[in-house]
């Protein structure tokens, strides 16, 4: 019986402490690529999309909205080791 205790604790820990990711596929698609979008703080609604972030921010009334840019889906993202060149 004692053998089950650690796994029960682990399950409880996992359920309580893992933050669920937003389901962006419900909210945006390829038509939003290259645009700025605002979604609700509970990740359930797309509030608005715009080519310009400043215009979008003026349009959105919800203070807790989440803003982000939808990057092109046909481009892979390569984390870069960045070389800096002083100007």
């Amino acid at each position: 019986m004692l053998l089950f205790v650690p796994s029960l604790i682990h399950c409880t820990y996992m359920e309580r402490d893992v933050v669920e990711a937003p389901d962006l596929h419900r909210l945006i698609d390829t038509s939003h690529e290259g645009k700025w979008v605002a979604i609700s703080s509970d990740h359930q609604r797309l509030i608005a999309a715009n080519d310009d972030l400043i215009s979008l921010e003026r349009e959105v009334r919800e203070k807790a909205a989440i803003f982000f840019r939808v990057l092109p889906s046909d481009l892979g993202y390569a984390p870069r080791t960045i070389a800096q060149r002083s100007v």
Partner: protein
Amino acid sequence: MKFEYTKSLTRDSKGHFVSRPLLELELLGKERILTVFGLVDSGADMSLVNARYAELLGIVLDELPTKDFVGISDSRVHTYFAEVPIRIKYFDKILYLPVAFADSPNVDILLGQEEFFDAYRIRFEKDHSVFELQASRSYWSHEL
């Protein structure tokens, strides 16, 4: 605290959606607080933020020191350096993060090595589709 990887719109070589370690955070500006997503990027030397956010935060880019960054394509990206206070969702403390504001359509927000990876212990568990973030005791004890 553990976070699920977020599925992006991009597909990998097998046709599956690429999952990325995204965090919800606040950019604390003089004029307003903006809630955004940041990609945790262990391959970036420092944090990069799209320059369009600067205007909303009340940061005047022309007054800031500049540097050019070179990515894998060798094309140069002009950036402006500033320190931006941020707060990660579910974490109380404010981190004063050095960022390079980049005027590039292919950058949203990247959370890179400098300061961010000092302030938080980050463990990627891609095989379980989660990553873990823990405030670094040594970093924050210096901050007190």
